[in-house]
């Protein structure tokens, strides 16, 4: 579904990504693991076209999307959930969802506000509340729901567990499993190994802008030295 190879990106003159390659199959949940500043967010932004890739290829659903504009990439069915959430604070929950709405294209069941409120019940009880007056966890759910309104085939989920209370993280994990059950493909970025292993099929580890390791979750759990080297703080 998503196939990235040789991807590199720069901020000014500083190289942030170097020859990044990763794969996400249809219906698969892949986690991109790495420490702070390893290049996880930049990888997602480069895939999405928010950071122009300097080199490399990003193939999505059979077409090359590297160098395209973010809105074109989104229209092909790639959804992006940013780490900083970037809720429209002046807009109500429903209006936030409206901004994300796009006609359904995929074979997946189309999303409606009602279905999203079933997935995230707390959002349903605050449909008219401005985004700026929601808690961090509620905002996190809203940004996922907003992206789902575009009926994507694959979503880039940038550190969804960051800064959330354990109870909320648990609920987030349930939501992600539910999305996977719907047939949605997900590329997740995480520092929280515990959360990642609970929802993912495979893992790819990034460190200083380079991919260092790829494998299944059971393989990762067996490889103590890999976890020690790239993930322990």
């Amino acid at each position, binding site marked *: 579904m998503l196939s990235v190879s040789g991807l590199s990106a720069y*901020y*000014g003159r500083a190289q942030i990504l170097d020859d990044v390659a990763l794969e996400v199959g249809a219906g698969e949940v892949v986690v991109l693991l790495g420490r702070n500043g390893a290049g996880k967010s930049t990888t997602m932004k480069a895939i*999405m076209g*928010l950071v122009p890739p300097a080199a490399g290829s990003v193939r999505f659903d059979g077409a090359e999307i590297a160098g395209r*504009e*973010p*809105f074109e990439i*989104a*229209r092909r069915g790639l959804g*992006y959930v*940013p780490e900083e959430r*970037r809720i*429209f*604070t*002046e*807009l109500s929950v429903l*209006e*936030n969802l*409206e*901004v*994300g*709405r*796009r006609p359904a294209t995929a074979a997946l069941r189309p999303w409606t506000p009602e279905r999203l409120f079933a997935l995230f019940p707390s959002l349903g009880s605050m449909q008219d509340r401005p985004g700026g007056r929601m808690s961090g966890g509620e905002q996190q759910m809203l940004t996922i729901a*907003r*992206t789902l309104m*575009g009926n994507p085939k694959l979503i880039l989920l940038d550190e969804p567990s960051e800064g959330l209370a354990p109870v909320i993280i648990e609920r987030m994990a349930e939501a992600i499993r539910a999305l996977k059950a719907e047939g949605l493909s997900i590329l997740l970025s995480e520092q929280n190994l515990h959360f990642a292993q609970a929802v993912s099929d495979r893992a790819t580890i990034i460190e200083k802008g380079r991919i260092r390791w790829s494998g299944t979750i059971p393989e990762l759990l067996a490889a103590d030295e890999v976890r020690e080297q790239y993930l322990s703080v």
Partner: protein
Amino acid sequence: MENLLLQALSGLASASSLFLVASGLTVIFGVSRVVNFAHGSLYMLGAYLAFTLVTQLPRGHLGFWGGVVGAAIIVGLIGVVVEVLLLRRIYRAPELFQLLATFGVVLIVQDLALMTWGAQDLLGPRAPGLRGSTEILGLRFPLYELFLIGVGPVVLGLLWLLFHRTRWGTLVRAATQDREMVGALGVNQRMLFTSVFFLGSLLAGLGGALQLPRESVNLHMDLSIITEAFVVVVVGGLGSLSGAALAALLIGELHAFGILVLPKITLVLVFLVMALVLVVRPHGLLGKPEAAARGGQGSAAPLIGPAPPALRRLGLAALAVAVLLPPFLGDYALSVLTEMAILVLFAASLHLIMGPGGMASFGHAAYFGLGAYGAALAGQWLGAPMLAGLALAPLAAGIFGLVFGFFCVRLSGVYAAMLTLAFAQIAWSVAFQWVELTGGDNGILGVWPDRWAAPKLVYYYLALVLCLGATLLLRRVIHAPFGYALRAQRDSTLRAEAIGIDAFRIRWLGFGLAAAAAGIAGGLFAYAKGSVFPTYMDIPRSVDALLMVLLGGVHTLSGPIVGALALTGLQEQLVRITDYWRLVLGSIIVLLVLFFPQGLAGAARARWEARHGDA
């Protein structure tokens, strides 16, 4: 009492018109973060086009109202053309560049209107069905004014519905906060921005077209409405529709009653209110702190280093010419050279604020003018000799620079630019309206140099020495610890303060110093011209200063110097060879902003460095 009611109603009518224009400006700013100077030109075009359509179409309701609406739609389309050809390409450029580019459009439109409609004022027909007047509480009041009073609230209501009840409106509000995120959700921002421009321009055009039965159509409508619209938008809070409505009401009534109560200071009053609001509420009445508009990546300003050897040689050669050539020149050439020397200092002083200081000033002419008036008034009222006048000039400008700067340097970005503009307009209004002291529009004449400096050649050398000296002093300042601190606070206020730099104090002193330097230039200018006028501190002169700095390039010290020489030379030549010099100058500005965003000196330097490796 009756008079008061009439004034209140007429204030409402102006508020309504003002709101139409300001709402378009604020909507465009909200989404694109571009302060569109050309908005006033769109207003003027609306009036001209309405004149043409209404007089060409058959008389009657259909002809009149069809003409008004048709003009508004055409202006909307013109706005689209401007957006697609120009603004779309500079959304990521610094604010002052955008302001400058749209000012280029102002110049172009002025001359195009002059070519099309001529220089004379045009009087349009009155609105059919609204010709007469009606009686309100026993007072006669024109029907058309009443109609206008109704238009404002109706437009406000329609806009509210548009923004809160349609998908398009929801997208626009979302993009106002975070346009990049809206794009990542699959929305084509270009289409969105272009459509917003259409709406905003249409409102400006409508505002202009509706003036047709009220006042004559002329070539000065653009700048007079744009200053008022700026005031309204800034007082209301940039991007806030309801704020614009509130501020339009405030300013409209202030005008109406100001004339009754304090006819002498009506002009000052408006800008005084604006300054007051910005001092108390830095983001306007209903505005929110500028959400750092996402989407652009701030690029670090390049370091100001010593000039490359080639440039240094060129500078020395120019200096040699400036010193050795004049004895062989006539009086006219000497006047031009004197003016050039003065403007180099003027530009260099603004550069200190904008380049190393990282602050925006849209009213630098105030200090130039204050210097000029300081010298002239000292001569006229105190009989001060020229040298005393020249000493007083930087003092007067510097003191006012410190007073105005005390408020201005607390703000940033567009608001800072607008507050500096407000103070400059206050200074201008005082010079214009305090006739007893300043002679008003007639200025102060007979400001001649003392006898020893009267020959043009002597005065030229005097100006050259003072301007060159002051410019070198400014250069020294930039490379002194004070200059380091100034640049440090520009690059990161927080980090600068963390290492013990009092950012406010540094900015404040920098502002005052730049004002004093501009004052020297102003003083010299007064004696060179033999007279002082309010135009010395009007908006076009502030724009000239900006042009010189930005055209030259803000990141090099040679920039403003090159810019000053280029601009004065260019204007001098253009005025001589064509009546449509604004058209040419405006086009040059637009092209330069599009193709040389670093300015002339910046581009030359980049090219030189690319050829010779990193110098």
